[in-house]
Each structure stands twice: as structure tokens, then as C-alpha cells.
């Protein structure tokens, strides 16, 4: 079982395609919508977490590519500038999924990237502007 986070970019031509439905039904993928932003006349963006067999993920992404939807893989969605960070912890309590915490011994900030859903709360909470999110 593989897990991948992806960003799909839709154009006005393909914005109405039920991509999520087809990935689930035709490719047997586990799909979790992390973020979605659509304006039917302009297109849209969809951030998904996909889980399934390697082959099915590849075939599913091929299908999405064929209908003209842009695909970007999210390798590391939160960019944390450790040099700028002062390890205060202002970001910790506004994170809905517990990505951020202070180490119990060193009290330095640590990030569990696996849990991130790219919501961006930490970006606006950081007083030192040390966190960025790619979206």
C-alpha cells in the first residue's frame, strides 16, 4: 500500500470532470480531500491524499493526466526555515492535526510532516514568518 499527496490543477475545460469519483470507482483508490478550491469559470485546485497499490496509483494518475488535469506531487508541503525559527511554539496550538510540537527535552520545535494537511494555519501563526506552505 502506497500513500501519495498530490495537487490537481483544473482548467475551465475539465473543471466539471468527477475525478475523485472516478479514482475511487475505476482505480480502487482510497481518496482523502485535504483542500479544494474551485471557481467553475476559472478552474480549480484540489489537494488529495491517495492510498492504494503502486500500479493503481500510477494508472489513476495517468487517467487524470489524459483528461488534461495538471498533476504535482507534494513531496514536502510545509517548508520550515529552521534558521529563522526561534522555537517559541506559537504555531503549535493552531495546528488541527498535531504536526508541530516542542521536544520535551530540548524544547526545540519539531515537525511531523506525515500528519500535515496543508491547511496553512501555522503560516499565519508564525510571528517570525519561518513557515511557508506550497499550494
Amino acid at each position: 500500500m502506497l500513500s501519495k499527496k498530490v495537487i490537481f490543477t483544473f482548467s475551465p475545460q475539465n473543471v466539471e470532470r468527477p475525478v475523485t469519483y472516478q479514482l475511487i470507482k475505476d482505480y480502487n483508490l482510497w481518496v482523502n480531500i485535504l483542500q479544494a478550491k474551485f471557481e467553475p469559470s476559472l478552474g480549480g485546485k484540489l489537494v488529495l491524499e491517495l492510498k492504494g497499490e503502486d500500479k493503481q496509483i500510477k494508472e489513476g494518475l495517468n487517467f487524470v493526466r489524459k483528461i488534461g488535469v495538471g498533476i504535482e506531487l507534494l513531496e514536502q508541503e510545509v517548508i520550515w526555515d529552521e534558521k529563522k525559527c526561534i522555537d517559541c511554539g506559537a504555531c503549535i496550538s493552531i495546528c488541527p492535526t498535531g504536526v508541530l510540537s516542542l521536544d520535551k527535552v530540548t524544547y526545540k520545535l519539531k515537525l511531523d510532516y506525515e500528519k500535515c494537511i496543508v491547511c496553512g494555519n501555522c503560516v499565519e501563526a508564525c510571528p517570525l514568518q519561518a513557515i511557508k506552505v506550497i499550494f
Partner: protein
Amino acid sequence: MTIKRTYEEINAKIKSGKVVIVTAEEIIPIVEEKGIKKATEEIDVVTTGTFGPMCSSGVILNFGHSDPPIRMQKIWLNDVEAYAGLAAVDVYLGATQLSERQGMEYGGAHVIEDLISGKKIKLKAISRGTDCYPRREIESYITKKSINQAILFNPRNGYQNYNVAVNTSERKIYTYMGILLPDLGNASYSTSGQLSPLLNDPEFTTIGIGTRIFLGGAQGYVVWEGTQFYPQVIKDENGKTIHKGGTLAVIGDLKEMSTDYIRAATFKGYGVTLVVGIGIPIPIINSEMMKSVAVKDEDIWTEIIDYGFPHLKKPSLGKVNYRQLRQGNITIRGKDVPVSPLSSYAKAREIAEKLKEEILRGKFLLQEPIQKFPQGSKFKPLLEIH
């Protein structure tokens, strides 16, 4: 018997390399193991530290005179206005002043940080012109090396203790205590607790006017009690004691400071502030001082205050200690609430450690206060009189 130790004795030990010094965190297990009496005998100095947002901060600058000279009446540094109502080329730049072009993204604190890191700062000033100062405008660039003085002078720093901020309203609010989520969604606090300078000397026995301190990476001084100085000791029926309201006015040479220990910050929706690193050495002049510095996070209490209420007197939702806060979650009205510190404990620890090293290297001597802070001060509101 109370052991007494003078400042002169401590400084003599620093000079001869025999001083025994630990941080306010390291002293806790020592006192637990050896007791107050033995610890007092063995240890001369305990260092404290804090690194948090301190809005009441700013810098006094003197640029030198141009030719022809100008008496600056309005001045901007990187589009952030400074106060020019002092002589001709002296100004005071406040940390929270916002840029006229970039708004909350850049402000006085950022100019201060850029000055410390040696960056070029754009200066623009205007004047009506006089016979002795004929010039009416000037545009130039300055750096910390090109100007005469850059003196950090912060009227209110080092708050002894502060509230825990929460929000019971239905709306997300943007405050100087960070982003507070609706319906008790989170909490924030801003003190280094057992490492905090004024919580280790809550009676101001060794901290007063003239105390030499670590300020932003350089040596600075306490010059007065801070503005809004109003120390209180609040005891409740369960024996929980809250010390709060002490503040410090501090001064130091900005040119000697380092961005490792002083930084600009922006709280979204609130504005710009300066994160200041302060470390204060506490001389163990007697066993009473040892008792003070042995204070632990679990013995330091503070109040949970509802910032969702937009008036001066905000409701309290109970008390909590710093051990509970430091664990990352507290319970309020039966709800498990995640907590964010706004002041960096890791940095506070680093500052206490660095101050300890400087004293051990003989670079930092202890200064006895030349005058104690006033007692019985009041905290007055601003009344609207028509």
C-alpha cells in the same frame, strides 16, 4: 544561620575564576538534593533568561549632521516613521511603528533587526528649514557603522508574569497573544517560567536601577522600573501564589547586539513587535535568595483570561501553573485545550547558559543596584474626561 555574600566577594571570585554558577533551571535539582543551606554555601550566582515579544521597545539614534545641516522634523527609516522631536538629528524609533508602504509586514522592529545585521537602511527626512539648519529635505542611507549612536532603550520589558490568553467567543481573533481560536480552541502564554528573571527575584532584592544584564547579546543595564510597574502578590485560599506586574526599563548598545538574541516579529492582524532576549544574573547574597531562585514551574501560577471579551477588564477562567502549560495541554471548563508558548523556552535556556559562560570567562561582573524600585506603585487606567 543565614549565609551572607557580598557583591564584592562574588566579583572577586569571578575575577579569580573561582565563581560557582548555575542556571535557574539547573539549580532546581541541586536544591532538591542538597537543601537550601548547602546550596547557598556552594553556589554564588544563578542565571536567568527570557526571549519573548516585548512591544514597548525602541532605539535612540543619532545620525550625525549633513552639510548643509538639517533639523529633522519628520523622519522615515525604510518607510517606517521615527519620532524626530528631539534636537536636530536625534530620533527615537519605536518597535511597533508600521511601515507606510508595507503595513504590518515590516515595522520599527524590522528596522532594528536590519540595523543590527549591518544592512543599509534608507533614511528620508524633511524640515521647515531655519537659519542655522537651512536644509529642508534629505535622502540617504545609513548603517550601524555610519551613525554615531544606536542605543536600544526599552521602556517596558521582561514582564514578571503574564496571562494565559484564550477566546470563548465564536470568532477567531488576532491578538498580541497570537491567534486565538473560537470556543476555547487554543491557549497561549508568554513567560519562561522557572527561568524568567523577575520570577526568580520576585521581591526585587537584587534587581533594581543599575543592575547589569544580558540584553540582546550585549551587556546592558536596568535603568528604571518599567512603565506600568505594579508588582502584586496574589495568594488564594489553596496557597497558590501569583507574582505579577513587575517590569523593567532597560538600555544597551544596539551596535553590540546580535540577531541571535533580538528579532523582529509580526503577529498577524495585530502588528509588529520586537522579540528581546534578556538574561539577569541573580547573586546568592543569602539563603532567602536561594529560596527565590529555586522556584519551579509547578509553583508559578498565572491566570487564564478570556480575550474574546473586548474590554479592559477581562473575565478570568481560573488558574494554571507553568508545569501544566509546558506539557502542552490544559483543561478549561472540562475541555482539553492545546497550548502555545509565545516566548521561546529553548532560547531562554540558551541565554541563561550564555550569561553563565560570560561570567565564568570573567567578562561579566555583577552590579549591585544603586537604587531599589519604588514600592506601593499603582496601575492607573486612562479615564475619559470631557
